[in-house]
């Protein structure tokens, strides 16, 4: 089905989320916060950490444990996995470790001539499989995917502490491309926060109105574990609002660019180039359409051997003085 971008419906939009932080800060519990006592969540528990969560918060959650990557992938074909709305990878760093073992066991290129891990080729194989795995969950299965990472506390060149995602290989960098939200989970003054503010010290990502440092409801005080459910609902509603608000802008931009391309196609000499230049100047431009239109005409003029004269704001035949 092909739809116009400005007519899209986001009520079933799925998201990618990164939650990271120090041990014990409550990342796994937060990842299960589907507002349904975990019933909508499949937790891929690669570090066997679910036992540390409060049983009340995981009572309905499906937990996938496996001794290797092949088992993880096979279990994604089960009814439980198909029915889940959220799939949590706890932790992404551990999944990379599982993938390394899978690569060593099944992919000849992952080993060097002595049978040891060949980092250069091996991580390439791991990356390809990781991409395919994430794509399976996000795109094929159409689930929300939540990556849990441990925080790696490092220091910058001035000795100030900074946080990074703990994960071997390139995934700690590339994971951000397909992610909608990323938050450092931190405890301050007895409260917990999801920090979506990106800066040099803390990787983070916010969008669709989910921004800043958001307090996480205190479950010990009786709050429902529904932070992610709230986040997804809020983001979907905001996406719809954003889309509706820019619908006219997008329509206007597309129309102008189409008109410009048609006009430029008809340019054959200096006279028609100047007429086109004037027409572009008189258009009510939207977003960057004026800059782009100018560039399209410039490129066409070049192919015709025309030269632009700034002083007269016009094109002349290439050999004209």
């Amino acid at each position: 089905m092909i739809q116009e971008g400005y007519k899209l419906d986001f009520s079933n939009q799925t998201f990618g989320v990164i939650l990271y932080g120090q041990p014990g800060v409550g990342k796994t519990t937060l990842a299960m916060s589907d507002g349904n006592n975990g019933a909508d969540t499949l937790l891929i528990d690669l570090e066997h950490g679910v036992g540390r969560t409060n049983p009340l918060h995981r009572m309905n959650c499906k937990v996938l444990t496996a001794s290797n990557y092949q088992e993880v992938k096979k279990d994604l074909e089960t009814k439980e996995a198909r029915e889940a709305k959220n799939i949590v990878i706890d932790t992404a760093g551990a999944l990379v470790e599982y993938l390394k073992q899978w690569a060593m066991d099944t992919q000849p290129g992952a080993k060097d001539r002595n049978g040891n891990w060949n980092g250069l080729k091996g991580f390439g194989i791991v990356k390809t499989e990781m991409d395919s795995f994430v794509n399976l969950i996000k795109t094929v299965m159409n689930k929300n995917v939540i990556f849990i990472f441990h925080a790696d506390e490092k220091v910058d060149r001035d000795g100030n502490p900074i946080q990074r995602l703990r994960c071997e290989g390139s995934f700690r960098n590339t994971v951000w491309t397909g992610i909608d939200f990323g938050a450092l989970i931190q405890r301050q003054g007895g409260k917990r926060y999801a920090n979506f503010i990106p800066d040099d010290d803390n990787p983070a990502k916010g969008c669709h109105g989910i921004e800043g440092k958001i307090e996480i409801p205190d479950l010990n005080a009786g709050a429902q574990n529904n932070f992610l459910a709230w986040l997804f609902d809020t983001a979907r509603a905001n996406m719809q609002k954003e889309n509706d608000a820019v619908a006219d802008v997008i329509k206007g931009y597309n129309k102008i660019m189409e008109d410009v391309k048609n006009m430029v196609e008809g340019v054959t000499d200096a006279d028609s180039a100047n007429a086109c230049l004037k027409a572009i100047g008189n258009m009510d431009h939207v977003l960057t359409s004026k800059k782009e239109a100018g560039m399209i005409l410039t490129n066409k003029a070049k192919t015709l051997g025309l030269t632009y004269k700034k002083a007269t704001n016009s094109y002349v035949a290439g050999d004209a003085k």
Partner: protein
Amino acid sequence: MKTRITKTLLDSWNYLFDCAEGQEDNAREEFLTTLKREQTPPNEAQQAGLDFEHLVMEIAEGRFRPEFVTDGTVNSVSGEVMGYDRYPKYYAGAKQIADIVRGGQWQVHVDTDVEVDGRTFWLHGFCDVIKAGVIYDVKFKTKSFNNLDLWHSYSHSSQHCAYLRCVPEAYEFVYLVSDGESLYTEAYDRRNSEPIENIIRNFMNWLKGEPELLQIYEERWVVDG
């Protein structure tokens, strides 16, 4: 007096302070070369970046054709020479970026006048790609991402600050970073970009403390007419 200013000059100045330990002399040399507007051939890394960008452009514009390598046989029925298509080493990474920038305009010259403390600066440069309100910059790293920590690699760059200032209609600037295989993106808007005036002011204040360099700047970066 109106002088030119570019992100290249500002970034080479910034590198004096941000360079790795032991690279201070190289950074100073690089800055002086830029300040004196000396033309130097691209180094190996720069050339690799240019080649990669060219590949992205070819794919995005539908002009890319893989090299056909014959295996030396001929189809006995059709008479067709048999063989296979050979793709360049970094094709996968280039295609990821091409899919994002397809339909955009390449190497768009952008400029604007910026007033800082009573001086006028002509800020100008070339955006790799502009498309529907977004400016894209293609970066290529010759080192695999595996061992790199890329988070906020460009937060101190003046590039997004400069180009968002030159193109007020754009709402976002996105760095598209590839190692030829993987893609890492970093996006900035006006809320998380330093106003270019601040960067220019800091640069000029620093230059004032280096009178010889200030003189070079004012001689070689003056806008004619």
